[in-house]
């Protein structure tokens, strides 16, 4: 890891169907950085996060994330080290919060014994046996943060992490972000609340019409 950037995109473009969503993206993120990503609705922020998470293949340019080329099969190996929290919770409503975490833990090869601990950390110790569908939106988002705590990630991609969380939980998230940076990881935060992000981010970039400005 020694000094190599965690994310390195040069001239990257993303196309979905016939539209060019992202264009000519150059971005380098080093260990320890907290980067704010701003931009209007529809500018391509979520798409950029999914690109960096290796979930969308770039149509142009070259990108490396955690040492893996975005177009090589290596990217399957490093996915485990990338955490992402999107607009809509990615958990299964029929399963309990505990079961959802257990599923992620087993996929990632993490000990399931950590589950009660991380749920307690996000204030959901009492909700381990509640199905996700019967949990409030904020509880579901907290459970996603518990997942990111449990699987030790090097890169965290957060899409509006403050939404749906109450003040206690927001403090938790900001603590998590700062700890991740201290430990030598990196965090990218998408948000529309610039003041809040500027307070914790080490720098910020702006996406306008598919390009970074």
């Amino acid at each position, binding site marked *: 890891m020694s000094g190599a950037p965690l994310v390195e995109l040069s001239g990257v473009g993303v196309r979905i169907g016939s539209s060019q969503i992202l264009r000519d993206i150059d971005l380098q993120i080093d260990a320890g950085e907290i980067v704010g990503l701003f931009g209007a609705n529809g500018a391509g922020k979520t798409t950029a996060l999914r690109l960096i998470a290796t979930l969308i293949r770039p149509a142009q340019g070259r990108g490396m994330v955690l040492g893996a080329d975005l177009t090589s099969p290596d990217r399957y190996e490093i996915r485990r080290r990338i955490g992402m929290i999107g607009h809509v919770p990615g958990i299964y409503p029929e399963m309990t919060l505990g079961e959802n975490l257990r599923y992620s833990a087993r996929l990632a090869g993490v000990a399931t014994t950590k589950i009660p*601990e991380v749920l*307690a*950390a996000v*204030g959901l110790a*009492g909700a381990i046996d*509640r199905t996700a569908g019967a949990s409030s939106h904020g*509880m579901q988002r907290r459970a996603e943060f518990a997942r990111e*705590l449990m699987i030790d990630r090097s890169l965290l991609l957060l899409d509006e992490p403050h939404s749906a969380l109450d003040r*206690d939980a927001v403090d938790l998230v900001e603590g998590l972000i700062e700890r991740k940076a201290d430990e030598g990881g990196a965090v990218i935060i998408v948000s529309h609340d610039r003041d809040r992000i500027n307070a914790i981010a080490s720098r910020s970039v702006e996406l306008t019409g598919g390009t970074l400005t």
Partner: protein
Amino acid sequence: MQSQTRIRRWPWIAIGLSLAVAFTLSMVSPADSVQGDLVRIMYVHVPSAWLAYLAFFVTFIGSVAYLITRSLRWDRIAAASAEIGVYFTGLAIALGMTWAKPTWGVWWTWDARLTLTAIMFFVYLGYLALRRTTDDQVLRAGRASVLGVLGAIQIPLVHFSVIWWRTLHQPPSLVRPDGPAIQDPMMLAALIGGVVAFTIVYVSLMVKRIELIHLEDRKVDMESAVERPVAGEAVTAPELGASS
């Protein structure tokens, strides 16, 4: 209110008396020329089946009335009647099977009436099972009444199945266009006596069951005043220090 919670005793007496009369009638009526004493099963088998029809028809009426009036009283009538109907259907099937073994040589066979009767049995078992899944009285009544209405379609289906598919089971012998097929007055009397007795049993059981369901509902209502889990209890302030 007062009268609804008073425990009545007359239904039990009525049940005992009418069953005794029906039993006597079925025993003194003559044996059949072909079936011998086996025919006595008929005096229970047939009234059971008919009372099952009656009971499910009352469920149907109760369900429709509930959907129109939204009064839970109708729902209780529908529920009580379905329960009793299930007993009678079960009895008809059980006796039919005991009758089938000596006469047809098998317990069960592919026959439209048999299959449809079994489906009817399960539909109303399902109706009862559905009622157990929720203790919210309004929701329960709404869902159960759907099934209470739909299930009633089974009644004509079972009854006419013997005409639509001419198979093993006996065609209608009493209620049919060209008059009753049973000629012996004693046999007819035993059959009618059985039906009357079973009807009294049905009405008596209905009275008891409605009483009981009413009490159960009130018990649930009172319980809901007691503490239940409350929103937000499961969520506490996060403590980041706790992990790693």
